[in-house]
């Protein structure tokens, strides 16, 4: 008869199941929906990138009109930051935080749901713009002002119609969703840890998301304010950014980058969180220098609030202003470097198992290092005067977002998919995914630095022959094809393994944090009894009673 009670819950009509998912406040389901939403837009964003690279593969190509191209890069950037990276990363955060701190759910489950659906509405609104105006095949009235939408290009004088408004409103709405998530992260991590889990005993992932929560609150607010100011300019007769009436274009630039820089730390810290959990497990060693990692994370959080004008070196600030931001930007490389050294030291002397998650983490280490180097180069304002707004910058930030963040996200998928679904992702397909993507990534983004060095600015829909840019743009396209193939393999792996993957059990990786102590997938209540912990690696203590962590911490 016990099986009947389980059977009862599987015989629901599809409609009832859909309602269950839409109305859920369970952090695991919300997390999964965030991730699925982000993956869907990853496919869309990648397709946009492919179209742009086809257009740029040859000089003076006529594959795309300038109007469509300009809409594509605007949508690509906006989608990538707000509707791919943030949802996937917040999704993993929502899924993992309660499980890793021994809690039954987030502090505010309904607020969590609110955050998800605001993000969804924002994305839908942004894409609704494609179907308005001239219709889908000309990309409708999608915004075409670049993802940072510099004023006064966005004022009604230069952007008639509603394309800019789709951008403004969709980000306004999803911004509220992000703030909700930020509040939830902070409250959950500070208030819901299980007995014995002092702050100094919580997983590094929890520390990273705590700082992310703080950053979200501080950084989304200026963006929201700027959106309101822009709407006031466009519809209520304001002139904040309306230079024709004495307004300030620089004001928008400051507001945007005061948001924009910490935003990218909101994106990278979760990637650090994943690698900080995965690298120790596959090196079979505890993380080297936990306290230093925490200190570095918190420092990065603070310093990131003071570097924004390195996006503005060409705008005409006085020399001492530029110099200040050179200093802070280079300074943030110090705690970041400390983290890289600590991950390396974790691997050193370990017994490294090159499972697919570990492969992605090792590539992450190398690629993040390179991205940091080009970042330090760009931090030197005189260097930036040449290479800012060129393809060198585009290569740099994609190196971080794809080479570091996306690789860490892939690692997280392979590592935690077994926990989420009870099945392992296929290791062979995973290795094909990894190698194809590494080849594609390097073909595209290594060589993309070169046109920048040769003078190619960003956001141009075509270029003349004879500038020396053609061959590099072609190589970039070839790399994109490899990446597309890799992603298709990955999606296939996700679907195939969901139905036919090898059963994972509770703890397929022999790991040490609390999520591996419960079932795969976890029951709705997460844990049968709330655990009590004595160290940072509760499962290590259980597996190694002769040599528990709490003796050394």
């Amino acid at each position, binding site marked *: 008869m016990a099986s009947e009670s389980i059977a009862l819950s599987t015989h629901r009509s599809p409609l009832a199941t859909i309602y269950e998912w839409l109305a859920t406040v369970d952090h695991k389901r919300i997390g999964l929906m965030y991730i699925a939403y982000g993956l869907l837009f990853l496919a869309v964003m990648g397709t946009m990138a492919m179209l742009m690279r086809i257009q740029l593969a040859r000089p003076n190509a006529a594959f795309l009109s*300038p*109007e469509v191209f*300009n809409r594509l890069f605007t949508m690509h950037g906006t989608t990538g930051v707000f509707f791919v990276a943030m949802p996937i990363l917040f999704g993993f955060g929502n899924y993992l935080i309660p499980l890793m701190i021994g809690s039954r759910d987030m502090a505010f489950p309904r607020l969590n749901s609110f955050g998800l659906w605001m993000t969804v509405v924002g994305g839908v609104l942004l894409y609704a713009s494609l179907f308005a105006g001239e219709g889908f095949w000309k990309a409708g009235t999608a915004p*075409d*002002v*670049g993802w940072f939408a*510099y004023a*006064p*290009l966005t004022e009604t004088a*230069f952007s008639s119609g509603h394309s800019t408004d789709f951008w403004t409103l969709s980000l306004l709405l999803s911004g509220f969703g992000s703030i909700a998530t930020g509040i939830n992260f902070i409250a959950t991590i500070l208030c819901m840890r299980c007995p014995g889990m002092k702050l100094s005993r919580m997983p590094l992932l929890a520390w990273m998301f705590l700082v992310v929560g703080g950053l979200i609150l501080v950084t989304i607010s200026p963006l929201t304010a700027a959106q309101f100011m822009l709407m006031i300019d466009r519809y209520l007769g304001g002139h904040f950014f309306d*230079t*024709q009436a004495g307004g*300030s*274009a*620089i004001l928008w630039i400051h507001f945007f980058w005061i948001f924009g820089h910490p935003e990218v730390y909101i994106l990278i810290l979760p990637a650090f969180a994943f690698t900080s959990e995965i690298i120790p497990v596959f*090196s*079979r*060693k*505890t993380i*080297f*220098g*936990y*306290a230093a990692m925490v200190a570095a994370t918190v420092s990065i959080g603070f310093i990131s609030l003071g570097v924004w004008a390195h996006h503005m070196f*060409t*705008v*005409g600030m*006085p*020399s001492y202003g*530029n*110099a200040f931001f*050179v*200093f802070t930007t280079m300074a943030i*490389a*110090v705690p970041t*470097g*400390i983290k*890289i050294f600590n991950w390396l030291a974790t*691997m050193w*002397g*370990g*017994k*490294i*198992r090159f499972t697919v998650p570990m492969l992605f983490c090792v590539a992450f*280490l190398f690629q993040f*290092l390179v991205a940091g180097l080009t970042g*330090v180069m760009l931090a030197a*304002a*005189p*260097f930036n*005067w040449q290479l800012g*707004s*060129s393809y060198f910058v585009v290569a740099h930030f994609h190196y971080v977002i794809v080479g570091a963040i996306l690789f860490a996200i892939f690692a997280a998928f392979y590592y935690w998919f077994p926990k989420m679904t009870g099945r392992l992702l296929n290791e062979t397909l995973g290795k094909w995914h990894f190698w194809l993507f590494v080849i594609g990534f390097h073909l595209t983004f290594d060589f993309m630095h070169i046109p920048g060095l040769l*003078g190619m*600015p960003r*956001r*141009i829909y075509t270029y003349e022959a004879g500038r020396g840019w053609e061959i590099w743009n072609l190589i970039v396209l070839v790399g994109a094809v490899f990446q597309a193939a890799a992603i298709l393999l990955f999606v296939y792996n996700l679907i195939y393994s969901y139905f036919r993957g090898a059963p994972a059990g509770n703890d397929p990786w022999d790991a040490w944090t609390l999520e591996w102590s419960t079932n795969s997938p976890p029951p709705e209540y997460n844990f049968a009894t709330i655990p009590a912990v004595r160290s940072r690696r509760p499962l290590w203590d259980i597996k*190694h009673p002769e*040599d528990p962590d709490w003796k*050394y*911490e």
Partner: protein
Amino acid sequence: MVVFSLLLYAAIKFRQRKHDDNNDFEPPQIYGSNQIELAWTVVPVIIVLVLFVSAAQVIHRVQDARRPKRTIEVTAVGHQYWWEYQYTQFGFVTSNELHIPVSDPPNSTPTFIGLQSADVDHSFWVPRLAGKTDLIPNHPNSMWIDPQNPGIYLGQCAQFCGVQHAKMLLRVYVDRQADFDRWVHEQQQDGVSDPSVADGAGLFTDKGCFVCHTIRGTAAQGQIGPDLTHIMSRDTLGAGLVPITRENLRRWIRDPGVFKPGSLMPAQDLTDQELDKITAYLLTLR
């Protein structure tokens, strides 16, 4: 390089081998080391300080450079999607092709370019001459170049400014002093007035071209589009797009969208004859 080689070394040396018989044992768990953390904090801090000081010195040298006595002063005004150059020192305005004299180190004559915008943000980037500086409406900027080799230097607008941002090209002609003086002298003259193209000159007024364009010495004093007084002294049309030939000029006037879709100059409703006459007139404006 150091970190990468360490990573590669660690990955290879510390990998778990299949034939390892002590796979059941975990390696020694090292929790950390304060001395090591200190070491790899202090060294990067020193590196950062060195890099910062050198960057700050260059910033100071570029942005706070003292102006020598003899400079060429030009004001560049960015428009969607062309460049206006005001040579107030010499009393004329031109467009799209910037001429400056080469600068000899002992008596350097750098060119100081004031940067303004008539509409949205632009950026002046000629890589082989200088780093870029933005042209921001309501926020005049300034940059200087000190070119020591004559020649043509190419660049383009480097801040997204709208649909034809990609075709807002820059051509900077660094001339020897004598050539530059001659060019200035020619530009200072009013527009050539050739009676054989009087029809075309008349059409220029009748068809409304004067509303946007200036031809000094005539009634055409429009400020919206490029100054055409000496259009035939330039090599290219449409901000560096195509060479100025009779055919290109004619096609441009009929419909600039053929070369630059989204250009703010509308297609002109002219008969073939009118088009021929206006083109013939413009061809005389050396």
